[in-house]
């Protein structure tokens, strides 16, 4: 296993290299560059632009060089810990993120916990009480969450939360706390706001989880070893959790790899609609305005988390099921 992990760690290097090229290409694909969009944004607002100044900036950031050169410049910078400069914020990329990062982690973390807390019991319930009213009802609710686009749900919740509970629309806290340091009131305010995004992002994920868990459990529930466990006198719940659930978790563990980056990127569109102070909208904005170093570093960070997440997921998989030999070939 240790050897396998080592091999995997080594293989991250070429993977990340390939990803960096891909990220670079993707950022470069849309026509124009940041300055182009900068100029057009200014002119759209009726402002004047000093084209000479723009040309100068272009030159300064090497935008008059061929893309290959810029790629190496960028990658070289990242290797030495210099993630480049955000044109939009006029700050080094490393300083732009600020508070947003932990707020994002907070929201995502809450969302994931809530998703699991809801999905696991319900999934188990649905599988053990297949075709009961509870199964149907919960399935229906879950699917409702999937069927309504997140932004719509966001708008509806926002609107009614405001009408009925007076919660201010959007954001993660009341505006007045924005610039303040952490305090009791501020955290209260955050708590009173966070449930909306958690609910919105959570609903879609929860239903997916419930349905999949249910499906996987249904397959396992009939297996002979479950009967054995029952014959030992194990209670249905403990049987379920110890045996079939562990088997059914396979799909879930396989997906752990994508949780990690999702925590950071957050649900972008919901975050945009709700105007959350998280990293998602920042990424989208950076992409739209072609703030390439910011977007690029962000994407690379996500990629890194993905790669690490996949490794964690594979290790967890081997822990979950002793039969799995990750490095091994199939017996022929």
């Amino acid at each position, binding site marked *: 296993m240790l050897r396998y992990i080592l091999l995997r760690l080594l293989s991250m290097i070429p993977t990340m290299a390939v990803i960096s090229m891909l990220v670079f290409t993707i*950022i470069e694909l849309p026509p124009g560059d940041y300055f182009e969009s900068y100029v057009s944004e200014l002119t759209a607002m009726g402002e004047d632009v000093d084209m000479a100044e723009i040309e100068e900036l272009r030159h300064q950031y090497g935008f008059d060089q061929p893309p290959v050169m810029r790629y190496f410049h960028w990658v070289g910078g990242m290797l030495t810990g210099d993630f480049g400069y955000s044109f939009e914020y006029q700050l080094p990329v490393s300083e732009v993120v600020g508070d947003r990062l932990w707020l994002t982690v907070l929201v995502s973390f809450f969302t994931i916990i809530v998703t699991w807390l809801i999905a696991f019991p319900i999934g188990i319930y649905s599988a053990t009480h297949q075709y009961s009213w509870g199964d149907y009802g919960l399935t229906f609710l879950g699917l409702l969450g999937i069927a309504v686009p997140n932004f719509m749900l966001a708008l509806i919740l926002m609107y009614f939360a405001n009408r009925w509970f007076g919660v201010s629309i959007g954001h993660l806290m009341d505006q007045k706390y924005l610039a303040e340091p952490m305090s009791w009131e501020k955290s209260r305010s955050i708590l009173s706001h966070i449930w909306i995004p958690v609910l919105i992002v959570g609903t879609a994920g929860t239903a997916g989880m419930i349905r999949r868990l249910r499906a996987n459990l249904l397959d396992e529930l009939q297996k002979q070893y479950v009967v054995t466990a029952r014959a030992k006198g194990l209670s249905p719940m403990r049987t379920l959790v110890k045996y079939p659930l562990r088997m059914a978790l396979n799909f879930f563990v396989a997906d752990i790899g994508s949780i990690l980056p999702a925590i950071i990127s957050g649900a972008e569109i919901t975050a945009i609609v709700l105007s959350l102070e998280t990293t998602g909208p920042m990424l989208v904005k950076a992409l739209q305005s072609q703030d390439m170093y910011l977007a690029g570093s962000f994407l690379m960070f996500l990629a890194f988390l993905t790669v690490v997440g996949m490794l964690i997921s594979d290790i967890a998989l081997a822990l979950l099921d002793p039969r799995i030999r990750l490095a091994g070939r199939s017996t022929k």
Partner: protein
Amino acid sequence: MTLETVRSPLPEPGAPLGHYVSDAPFDPDRLEETTPRHKKFARASQKQLMWWKFRRHKLALASAWFLGILYAMILVVEFLAPYNLHTRHMEHIYEPPQRVRLFHEGSFVGPFVYGRTMRLDMDTLQRIYTDNPADVQPIRFFCSGDSYRFWGLKEADFHLACPAKGGTLFLLGTDRLGRDVLSRILYGARISLTIGLLGIAISFTLGIVIGGLAGYHGGWFDLIVQRLIEVLQSIPSIPLWMALAAIMPVTWSPILIYIGITVILGLLDWTGLARAVRSKLLSLREEDYVLAAQLMGAGSARIIGRHLVPGFMSHLIATATLAIPGMILGETALSFLGLGLRPPITSWGILLTEARSVSVIAFYPWLLFPTLFVILVILAFNFLGDGLRDAADPYK
């Protein structure tokens, strides 16, 4: 030493057991009695068996019917929709749904709607519609209304239902250009229920094949496939959409671009499924029956397709049914970023995107009707999935 034969194999509690011998007729060569029903089942093919099992799941059957009808309907949308996709009614902007009634002033008239009068509230700039009970507008059936080109080929104007001459029939209200929401939903179904499935088909095929091979073979193949998956998963969908939207040829029609994006998304979207399949197969491949199949000389394709994937069918079905809303509504996210479908094409996603404002929720909630259709379709697909799952479940 011989014991007396007793009548029952079960003595009184605690009593010693006598020697019981059954006196029922005994013929070892007699076969188990088989009913014709047993015979029928024994002779049936596996597909037939599945169908019989599926049939027992009433809700799944109903869902299958519902979807079947829906898909049949999208073939003849032009005929079913009371209006054309683009027919506007400037005097009926944001008109709430009209109720179909049967009785007018206590007497039966048949299905009809009341005409409406509109008043513009100059202060709030709201259009206020009131039923005009004097204006009874009977709905006409199998009638001629807006003319259309059926499938772009044949000129026709035949409709299932039309408004009364000079009247209106907005069963689900109208939108901001006075277009009939019902008609738009019907036309939208055509796109929403077809193209997205293409993407699912692509991503599922890829996911199962690639994930299956990686999980079954393991080793280097797996290592490389996993790296590929890492690379693909590393790129979030949003930048990808943006890049794709940027490179799609300008001259393509919107529908072609949409198909293009769907296909490409399908081509990139298989990774999650592939990983799930692979992980499951990594453990399933250690089962004895896989070995048995190998020893019979079965190839990878057969082992994956016939032995391993069926063991994972429930998950696949669940995932597929869950992917459908994603594909129907995927374009809402695209539109959100300004990359989605554009008129003149209409889909449910577009309709919902257009309803994207607090005003709609507050004043024109009927514009959210497409959601209802999405929900119905998704429920139907899920129940259908349940039925299929059960049909494939040997324990049922």
